[in-house]
């Protein structure tokens, strides 16, 4: 069973092919956001280098959020196109859970983050264990959009060291590390999105029967469009005014 995983949720454009036994191939470009131009040629090269054809893939995986709205859609539309053309199932993986899988061999709490702009981060908490021979992440704080202060408070309530990962650290790392004494970071190469990690999470979901088809697969933006937010705010204010 071969899984092709695509992740264009952040500045990293990455894809990997995984089966039950091994990571067969992976491509990672952590440079400039030109995902629309680069992702498909990268996948093409990766498949050619590993002697595979797209038709050899059994399940098409995609990282489905949170992250850059446009980036997420490039990955999702690509994965849906593959799955629809070849009549194959899909699997979707959280950006945050995939990040947490990067450092799964630990007893520390794992806090993956993705920059959400406006002084906020998308974040969640996971627990693994340091003897993890198999991936076994438990979600201990739900995915959400967090103000940095609120996240610090949540992390300080955790009764263990916390490894903070992801591009939320770029803007908010110094604040998080100063406000959370038990916080630490991981080396940069483990703190970024890697499709192999997402694929490992995806493989587990496939084994648990959590596949979807190309019509069902959806994105988990965790945030509405600003037009919707503004409209809801306005309607709420009007409703309050009428009371």
């Amino acid at each position, binding site marked *: 069973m071969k899984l092709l995983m695509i992740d264009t949720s952040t500045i990293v454009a990455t894809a990997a092919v995984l089966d039950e036994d091994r990571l067969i191939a992976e491509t990672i470009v952590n440079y400039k956001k030109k995902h629309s131009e680069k992702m498909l040629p990268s996948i*093409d090269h990766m498949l050619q280098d590993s002697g595979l054809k797209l038709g050899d893939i059994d399940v098409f995986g995609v990282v489905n959020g949170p992250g850059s709205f446009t980036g997420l859609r490039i990955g999702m539309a690509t994965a849906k196109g593959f799955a629809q053309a070849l009549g194959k199932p899909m699997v979707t993986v959280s950006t945050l859970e995939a990040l947490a899988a990067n450092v799964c061999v630990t007893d520390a709490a794992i806090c993956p983050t993705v920059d959400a702009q406006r002084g906020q981060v998308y974040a969640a908490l996971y627990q693994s264990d340091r003897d993890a021979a198999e991936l076994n992440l438990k979600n201990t704080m739900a995915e959400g959009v967090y103000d940095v202060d609120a996240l610090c408070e949540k992390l300080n309530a955790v009764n263990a060291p916390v490894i903070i990962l992801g591009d939320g650290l770029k803007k908010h790392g110094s604040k998080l590390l100063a406000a959370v004494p038990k916080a630490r970071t991981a080396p940069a190469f483990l703190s970024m999105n890697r499709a192999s990690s997402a694929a490992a999470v995806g493989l587990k979901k496939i084994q648990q029967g959590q596949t979807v088809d190309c019509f069902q697969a959806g994105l988990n933006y965790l945030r509405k469009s600003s037009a919707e937010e503004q409209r809801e705010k306005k309607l709420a204010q009007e409703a309050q005014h009428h009371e």
Partner: protein
Amino acid sequence: MKILSIESSCDETAAAIIENGRRILANQVYTQIAIHRKYGGVVPEIASRNHVMKMPFVIQDALDEAQLTFDDLDAVAVTKGPGLVGALLVGVSTAKALAYALDKPLIGVNHIEGHIAANYLAFPELEPPFLALVVSGGHTNLVIVKDYGTNIILGRTRDDAAGEAFDKVARVLGYPYPGGPAVDQAAQAGDPQAIDFPRVMLEKDSYDFSFSGLKSAVLNELNHRKMKHIPYKREDVAASFQAAVLDVLTEKTIRCAEAYGLKKIVVAGGVSANKGLRARMDAAAKQHGWQLYYPPLSLCTDNAAMIGARAYYDFKLGRTSGWDLNAVPGLELPGIDRDRV
């Protein structure tokens, strides 16, 4: 040759299957108008979110309508621009993945050329050369389509597109989105001579357009009347505004046709659905002995059928795309400027 074509440049999610550039085997459009109406216009992020969820459905519906499978297709085409970048990217990413997975050629199509090609679907006998007036929410162009691969650009808008002016005037008059059809309908009931709005013709020999001054004139007139409590019928404002736009469009088209000795005239783009424009162009055709073409209403607004029609000619010209195809939001109508002919 059967081409699956995809269009997602604005708020229509569309897929079609076109044979040899001329025959519609399937034409599916999922319109998001109802979704965007409550915001008074297209919200790009919401449009993109809907595109990515609806796209597989319109593609499957197109296959079902044509009673074909993916294996029966010879190529995949997609609108590469112009349009909203996030919206375009959904179609482009989908088409690339489909073409790659099916091992078929990929054809990135210019949306404005697609509008012109809508007429190839409606009129089997229509072939270049002809003069085309392309008017839509994003574009206003006068172009000689010399052959399937060569456009000579005579004029383009220097500021707002005609359709853009329609949408803005509709909004200030309080008509719901999309404003163009509402203004057209209101104009039928109004007096086109009620208010004398400017007809901006620019330089004597220019075929370019400018509609931002007209738009401002309408806004100023309405503000003035509101301040001075001068009553007005909005049907009259709509009719007077529309008359000003149509005067310019018709006059410039007539001038071009005469200057270049062309009798075959094609009208394309969303505004070609405008009843007032059609009436004016019909009258001009009668007066000047034109063969006049405009697409049926269903092919005036954004659709994928027109993209599939254009894609056939792009393919014949060897204009296929690589796997690095990207969306180009500001894409212009390709062609040679008349000054350089």
